[in-house]
């Protein structure tokens, strides 16, 4: 069984439900002792932008996205954010939440090529 787990998220403002679910599952992986990485791309990058991720709240039974993201990072989860995707949207590194790092596709490929299972939202 792999000790790593990856979640990719491609929507946030366009579909807050998907961003929320992605982080819920990532927290399940992290809470199950998996070294867990979230890769945000396309519209999903907004889930790691300060001043934006606070706006997504799908309501009960889901926690607000901010709580899910902060809990993920606070428990040692890693967030990689597609660098051309943030550049396209005028987002700079200082606008990202703590624990989120811009990265290119090679970082995702490396993580998956090492055997990490991946689920996409």
């Amino acid at each position: 069984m792999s000790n790593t787990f990856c979640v990719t998220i491609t929507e946030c403002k366009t579909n807050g439900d998907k961003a929320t679910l992605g982080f819920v599952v990532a927290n399940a992986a992290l809470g199950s002792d998996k070294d867990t990485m979230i890769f945000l791309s396309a519209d999903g990058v907004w889930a790691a932008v300060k001043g934006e991720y606070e706006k997504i709240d799908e309501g009960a039974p889901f926690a607000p996205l901010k709580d899910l993201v902060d809990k993920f990072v606070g428990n040692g989860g890693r967030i990689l954010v597609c660098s051309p995707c943030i550049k396209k949207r005028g987002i700079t590194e200082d606008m990202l939440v703590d624990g989120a790092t811009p990265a290119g596709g090679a970082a995702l490929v490396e993580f998956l090529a090492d055997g990490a299972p991946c689920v996409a939202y």
Partner: protein
Amino acid sequence: MAGVPAHWEFDEVYDAVDRGCGDFIIDLKRVVTHLPPGTNLMVASRDAGAPVEIPAWCRLTRHRLVDAAPPFYLIRTRS
């Protein structure tokens, strides 16, 4: 707590009320992290997915599911 099997013996209790899935699991991990090995933890979760979720979490983390009587679960932390 009403409904807990009378013969269960446990050291700690974590009542998650109706929470389930990942947000519950990551909090459960935090609770277990602070317990000594071999602790008997009684977990309560009234989420509909808990009867599947908690046994899966125990298999993944190698904590032992001693017994289950939904919504109650008796877990012994791994050594």
